[in-house]
C-alpha cells in the first residue's frame, strides 16, 4: 500500500494551516463583531427604556424630595440618587395633599443595576414597584436647576438634568454609551 509521501504531508499541512488560520481569523473577528454589536444593541435598548421611565416620572413629579421616608430617609437625594414626590392617584383623579415617592438608585449589592422603586401612599391607586431599569449601568448623575437655569438644591429644583452612561462588556470587548436629558417638573 502506498501512503502519503513526506512532501505531500508537509505541503498539505502547510496549506491546511494557512487556510485554517484564515478561517479561524474570520470566525474570531466575526464573533468579536457579533459580541460588540450585540453589546451596542443591548445598551441602546437599555438606555432608551431607562430614560423613558426616568423622564416620565420627572415630568409628573411635584417636587424632588430630600429623601424617602422624608422624616428618616433610607434613600437621600444626591447626585447619584433621585427621590421624586408625585401626587397620589385616586380612582378617577389626584388625591390632594397626598404623595407617592419614586426612588431611582443603584442596587446596593451590584452597582451596575439601576432600580426604580415606587413607594405609594396607602390611599393611592399607584402600585408599589421594584423594577430593574438596566443591568449595564456605568454611571448616573443628576443635576438640579431652577427655571432660570441656575443650579440649586434638589428640593428647590424645577428642572432635573439626568446623565446616564451604560457599559456593556464581554471579555475584552466593551462599548459605552451616554445619554443626557433635561426634564422640567410639570407639577412644580
Amino acid at each position, binding site marked *: 500500500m502506498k501512503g502519503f509521501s513526506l512532501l505531500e504531508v508537509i505541503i498539505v499541512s502547510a496549506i*491546511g494551516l494557512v487556510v485554517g488560520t484564515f478561517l479561524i481569523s474570520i470566525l474570531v473577528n466575526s*464573533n468579536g463583531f457579533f459580541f460588540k*454589536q450585540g453589546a*451596542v444593541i443591548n445598551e*441602546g435598548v437599555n438606555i*432608551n427604556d431607562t430614560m*423613558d421611565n426616568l423622564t416620565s416620572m420627572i415630568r409628573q413629579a411635584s417636587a424632588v424630595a430630600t429623601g424617602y421616608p422624608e422624616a428618616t430617609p433610607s434613600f437621600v437625594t444626591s447626585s447619584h440618587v433621585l427621590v421624586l414626590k408625585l*401626587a397620589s392617584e385616586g380612582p378617577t383623579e*389626584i388625591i390632594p395633599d397626598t404623595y407617592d415617592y419614586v426612588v431611582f438608585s443603584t442596587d446596593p449589592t451590584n452597582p451596575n443595576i439601576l432600580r426604580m422603586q415606587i413607594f405609594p401612599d396607602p390611599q393611592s391607586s399607584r402600585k408599589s414597584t421594584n423594577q430593574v431599569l438596566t443591568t449595564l449601568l456605568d454611571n448616573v448623575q443628576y443635576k438640579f436647576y431652577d427655571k432660570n437655569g441656575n443650579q440649586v438644591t434638589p428640593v428647590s429644583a424645577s428642572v432635573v438634568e439626568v446623565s446616564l452612561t451604560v457599559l456593556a462588556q464581554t471579555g475584552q470587548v466593551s462599548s459605552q454609551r451616554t445619554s443626557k436629558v433635561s426634564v422640567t417638573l410639570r407639577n412644580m
Partner: protein
Amino acid sequence: MNKRQLNKSFCPTIESGQILILGVIVIGLVLVNTLVIIGGSQIYSNNAKYSVEETQATNLAEAGVDKALASLNATGGSYNGDSEIQLGEGSYSVTVTTPDVGTKVIEATGYIPSKAEPKVTRTIKVSASKGLGVSFNYGVQVGEGGLQMSNGARVNGSIYSNGNVSMSNNSIVTGDAYVAGGVAPAPDQESVCTTPSCTDFVFGKNVAGNDQLDVAQSFKPSVSDYLNKISLNLKKVGSPPDITVRITKDKNGSPDKNNVIASGTLPASLVTGNYGFVEVTFTSSPQVNSGNTYWILLDTTSNATNYWSWSADSSQGYTRGAAKWSANWQATTPIWNSTLVDLDFKTFMGGTRTNITGTNGSTVQGDAHANTLNSLLINGGAYYQTANGISAGNYYPGSADPPAKAMPVSDANIQAWKDAATAAGVYTGNISSCRTTLGPGKYVGNVTFTNNCMVTIKDPVWITGYLNLSNNVVLNLDSSYGASSGVIVVDGVITLSNSCRLLGSGTAGSYLLTLTTYDSRTNGSTAVSVANSGNQGVLYAPYGMVVISNNNHMTELTAWKINLSNNVVVDYDTGLASSFFSSGPSGSFSIIKGSYQEK
C-alpha cells in the same frame, strides 16, 4: 491493482480532504452571526424609533393641552375638545369635562402617526381653572400687630408673625414659631405717581422694537439697616409667570449683575389686571447702607400676550434714584436704557427688635426663630440673637432674623373679588332674616343671621356693612364647588358667637374664607370677634385685629393682629397650603399646579 488505484479507475474525480467541511462550518457560523446582528439591529432601530415616537406623542399631547387652554380662554370656557387635529408627523385629540364650578379637566392624547392607526399614543390629563390659588402655609399668620396667646390657647401647626409674639399661661404652639425681624411701619423710600403724571411702563414683551424684559428702579436708603420688604405698584396682562425680584448694588449708574444682595419671588397670583401695591419679601433680608444706591430688579421673559405693566411717574419726582430697562441683565455687557419715568415703589427697613416671650409654661414644641427669645420652653431648636431664660432642645445663637412674610392675599386680589361680586349683582338693604342661599353679589348693608340659620353660599359675596352670626348659624359653600374654595368679603366688622361655622363645600380641600378689610390700625377697634365657644372657620383680616376667646376651634387665622385666649384652638388644615378660589381674579384659565398626569 490496489484499492486506491481501483477507486481512481472507477471514480476518477473523488479527492480526500477536510478543509471544505471546516470552511462550510465557519461560513455557516459567520452567516448566523450576521443574521443575528441584522435582527438585533432591526430591534434596536425599532426601539430607538419607538422612543422618538413616544417623545413625539407626549409633545403632541402637551400641544393639545396648550390648545385646550387657549380655546377655553378664547371661548369663555365653552370649548369642549377636538376629535383629531393633525400636527407634524402625528395628531392629537382633546376632551374637556367640567366636574365642578370653575374647574375643567383636559385630557389630551397624542398619536403617531394618526388616531386611526396609532403606533404610539400618549395621554396627558390636567385640571385647569379660572381662579386664584392661595397658599395659607401657617396655622396662624400675623402682620406687624403681633400675636397674643394666653390661658391655654393652642395652635396645632406653625405660626409666622411680622410682630412680637406673647405667650402666657400654658399656651402651646405645636409646630414652629417664627417672628420676623421688625419692619418699620412707614416706608423709608417711595415713589408714587399722582394724577395726571401717572403712566404705564410695560415690560415682559417687545415694545416698539425694544425687548423690555428686565426693568430696575434704583433708590438710596436714608438709614443703614435691613431692607425687610418692598412694595411695587403693578398690574398684569394675561397670565405671566411669577417674577424673580432681586436687590443689587450699583455699578456706574446701572444694576451690578455681579452684586446681587437679595432675591425673592413676586407671585403672579397676587397681581391682577388693575394696579395695586404688592409686597415682596426676600429669602434673607439684605443689609443696605444709607446713601448708597441700590436697585430693585425685575427679571422676566418675553411673551406677547402675557406681560406686565408697572405704574410710573412721568414727572420723575423721585430724586434719589432712576429707572432703567434692559433686554438681558445677565448679558456679558448688559445695556441699560433709561425709562424716562420713575416706577412706583416703596421700601420698608427694619424696625424694633422683635421677640417671642413666654411665661407660665408656654411652649413651642417645634423650633423657635426670633431676634429675641424670652422665658420660653422650646422642644426643638432655639434660633436667636438674644435669649433670656429659655429652655430648648438645641441652641443656635447668632441666627439671622427671619425675613418678613407678605400676606397670602393682596389688596388687588380683594378688589378683584369685589369687582366680580359687583358684576354678579348689587342688592341694597340690610339682611336680618334667615335665607337658604346667599350670593354671588354685592350686598350694600349689614347681614345678620341667627338661631340655627343654614345658608348656602355662592361666592364671591361682598358685604359693605358688618356680618353678624350667632347661635348655631352655618354658612357653607355650595356642593358644586367640589374641591374649590370660596370667599366672603366684608368691609365692616365680623362677629361670630355661639357655635357658628364657616364651612367649605364638604369636599376635602374646600374652604370658605371669610375676610374683612376693616382697618384696626387707625382706630384700635376689633375687626373680627369670635366668642362663646363652638365657632369654626378660616378668617382673614389683613389690616384688622382678630380677637378669639372661649373654647373656639378655628381652622386658620391670618390678620394684622391676633389675640387668642381661654383655650382657643387653631387646628391648621394642610389643605390650606394649596387652596383654590374659583371666583378669583385674572379671569383666564390656567393649569392647576399639581394636576399634570401621564396615562
